[in-house]
């Protein structure tokens, strides 16, 4: 760290620094070659007569060279800043940079508006760009890229419009409330406009989420809503885990166990007794919370990393029990025909018993109603989690969580009951996991232990960590980016977990407090300040 500061503050670019960077990049490439020569360079192929070796030394050398180049680029442009000394020193973007950003967003916004308002504009643009590549091996890649760009442009358009709308509504509301004519603000520059708009990010996101089913109407509606439901489920899980990991500082690696408890509680109660989803949902949450307490009790005395391993072991135990307890859980075959969700007693089926949703409202039958309803249910559940954890942070218990995260011994010395504090964190986190689990069960209609592996826990943890521990909006962004991108790059889905793992490492090393690295303390004196993550680093001990 110290070394980096010193070199960044240096005055001139020494040629020897460049030479040194090249030397170090070469060494890095050599080490990478040693690492990859066996694992990447030679592949064991399963064949009829046993294992045979396939040589791919070119890959190993290429990968090592790529790592060397990457190291060189980072060394020169990021760590040493040999070639960009002029703007070194300021961490915050200057006004000029901000204006440029604002103008760039403006251009993206206009393109997005064109795509949104003019039908066929997007496919036209795709054809225009992908045209020269037609027939070549690049075609698929370019088309995927254009689709992605289209979605990003549209998302920017919708979000910025929503932000502007929220801003306008607030301004008007304020002027009505103070019964004055709207005060003309200072002259609007692109950069101040950007500031005003980004302040409305969260409400705008919410507004977009509420009208999403209308926005995506069309042939893609079902697919888009299914994806949105999946993303929202992970956002909900992320917010639930954020209570345990982000607020209370207890690293729980077995969170998926509570998801599983919720899913199986709902599935078993609903299939055995035929109770409705709305009765089972609180029950599932209660069971999960109970398990949170049962599993929380033994680990009360454990420190951070011990706790992580024990919760991981608990998660695995629950999965193995679900896998082997045939008489209750039907083992690896799972539970199928879990009752679907109902709308105040009206079901969404086409035929069969009971009053149908479409008959009651006199609509044409369509499978999409159920999906839309599911979407709003998970949106409400997720918002409830967010609201509750937001409120809890302001209650004594929430402050106790944050205090415990920062220093457990100091917390105990001040007379805070650590047992209660830890158990409530576990129980509340587990309860939200249980809600998400029973939602998952009713949405899928089928569950098996396959869905509750450690990978799932790791994915939720990755979302929380990448978003920034304790940051609510960060979880949303991380979930949308991680799950959205893996939805897009379907062909690359086998690289998904590799990228998740690598990005967890990168983000932790680069910004240990997550992408949204400002941690606003809940309790402030006099005035509210955002404190950068570097300043509030905990003691190493």
């Amino acid at each position, binding site marked *: 760290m110290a070394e980096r500061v010193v070199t960044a503050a240096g005055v001139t670019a020494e040629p020897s620094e460049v030479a040194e960077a090249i030397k170090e990049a070469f060494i890095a490439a050599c080490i990478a070659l040693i*690492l990859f020569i066996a694992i990447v360079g030679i592949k064991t192929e399963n064949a009829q007569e046993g294992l045979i070796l396939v040589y791919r030394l070119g890959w190993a050398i290429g990968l090592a060279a790529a790592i060397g180049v990457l190291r060189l680029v980072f060394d020169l442009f990021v760590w040493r800043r040999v070639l960009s000394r002029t703007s070194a020193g300021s961490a915050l973007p200057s006004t000029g940079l901000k204006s440029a950003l604002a103008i760039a967003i403006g251009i993206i916004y206009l393109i997005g508006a064109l795509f949104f308002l003019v039908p066929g504009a997007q496919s036209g643009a795709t054809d225009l760009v992908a045209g020269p590549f037609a027939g070549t091996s690049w075609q698929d890649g370019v088309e995927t890229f254009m689709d992605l760009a289209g979605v990003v442009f549209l998302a920017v358009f919708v979000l910025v419009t929503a932000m502007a709308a929220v801003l306008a509504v607030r301004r008007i509301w304020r002027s009505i409330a103070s019964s004055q004519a709207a005060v003309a603000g200072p002259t609007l520059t692109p950069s101040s406009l950007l500031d005003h708009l980004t302040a409305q990010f969260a409400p705008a996101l919410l507004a977009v989420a509420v009208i999403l089913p209308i926005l995506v109407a069309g042939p893609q509606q079902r697919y888009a809503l299914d994806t949105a439901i999946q993303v929202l489920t992970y956002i909900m899980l992320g917010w639930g885990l954020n209570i345990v990991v982000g607020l209370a500082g207890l690293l729980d690696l077995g969170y998926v166990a509570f998801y599983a408890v919720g899913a199986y509680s709902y599935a078993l109660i609903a299939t055995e007794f035929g109770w409705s989803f709305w009765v089972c949902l609180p029950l599932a949450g209660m069971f999960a919370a109970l398990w949170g307490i049962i599993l929380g009790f033994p680990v009360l005395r454990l420190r951070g*990393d*011990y706790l992580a391993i*024990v919760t991981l072991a608990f998660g695995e135990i629950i999965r193995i029990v679900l896998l082997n307890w045939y008489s209750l859980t039907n083992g690896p075959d799972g539970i199928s025909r879990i009752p679907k969700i109902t709308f105040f007693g009206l079901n969404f089926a086409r035929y069969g018993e009971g009053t149908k949703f479409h008959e009651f409202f006199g609509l044409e039958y369509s499978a999409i109603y159920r999906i839309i309803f599911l979407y709003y249910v998970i949106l409400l559940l997720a918002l409830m989690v967010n609201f509750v954890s937001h409120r809890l942070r302001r209650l004594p218990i929430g402050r106790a969580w944050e205090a415990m995260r920062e220093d457990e011994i100091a917390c105990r010395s001040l007379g805070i009951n650590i047992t209660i504090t830890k158990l409530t964190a576990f129980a509340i986190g587990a309860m939200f996991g249980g809600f998400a689990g029973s939602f998952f069960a009713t949405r899928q209609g089928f569950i098996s232990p396959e869905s509750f592996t450690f990978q799932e826990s790791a994915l939720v943890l990755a979302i929380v960590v990448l978003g920034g521990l304790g940051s609510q909006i960060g979880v949303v962004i991380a979930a949308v980016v991680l799950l959205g991108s893996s939805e897009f790059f379907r062909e690359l889905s086998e690289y998904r*977990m590799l990228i998740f*793992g690598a990005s967890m490492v990168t983000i*932790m090393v680069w910004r240990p407090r997550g992408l949204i690295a400002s941690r606003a303390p809940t309790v402030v004196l006099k005035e509210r300040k955002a404190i950068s993550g570097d300043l509030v680093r905990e003691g190493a001990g």
Partner: protein
Amino acid sequence: MEYFIQQLINGLTLGSIYGLIAIGYTMVYGIIGMINFAHGDIFMMGAFISLITFLLLVSIGITFVPIALLLVLIVAMLLTSVWGWALERVAYRPLRTSFRLAPLITAIGMSIALQNFVQLTQDARVKPLPPVVTGGFTFWRGDGFSVTLSNIQILIIVTTIVLMAAFSYIIANTALGRQQRACEQDRKMAALLGVNVDRVIALTFVMGAALAAVAGLMYMLYYGVIDFFIGFVAGIKAFTAAVLGGIGSLPGAILGGLIIGLIEVFWAGYFSTEYKDVAAFSILAIVMIFFPSGLLGKPEVEKV
């Protein structure tokens, strides 16, 4: 009785493998006070490197088993050590002064990344290897059941004893070992007295990875199949062994490994195979809760 002795032998063999992995956990924990969550995957990496090297040697015509195994052992230890070193350099060193959950999270990230890296480059299917070390001694021919001590089991147990002796010597009598013990007691003080702490920590990871490579080779020879996922469960069990024996203690790691191996084998032999992992994980929880300092470990005093 014959069945019991046979299970005892199997348990000791399995326990030796766990013990070798556990040493890596215990040394790293002793020196920097964190769980190297990715150590199980370093073990898996060692197993894959061993497999590839062995097949490579066979394909160039070295088929005399003792020579081939010796070469495989050396290559696997070297290459896996580089992995251990790189792991420390990339994921742990930059976070030495960060908050306490940060290195654990990078460790989990590394574990996921390594698993999926091997899955991508070597594909997800299990890799079978025909038995390499065959034969053994059969004694105690009971009626209908005989006790067998196979050569591979002898090889595993002897290797473990030899490595254990070598590493105890290194820790107790060499300059490096002294530096390691100094860093374990007080890293800042050791640095003030001229110990290159970064180098010592890196070498600790290297030693742990080399032992994990040996464990990987033994695992491959003993079971004859490996896949990219073996590191996860073996890692947790070896960690249990390290905790059970008392984290930070080298003999404790081997003792814990043997106990975990025996419990697992006897549980599978007398009760049920499905729940053998549950047995090992439950022991982890019980030990952590009731004997956090383990069998041979020193009780940990929390300093303010």
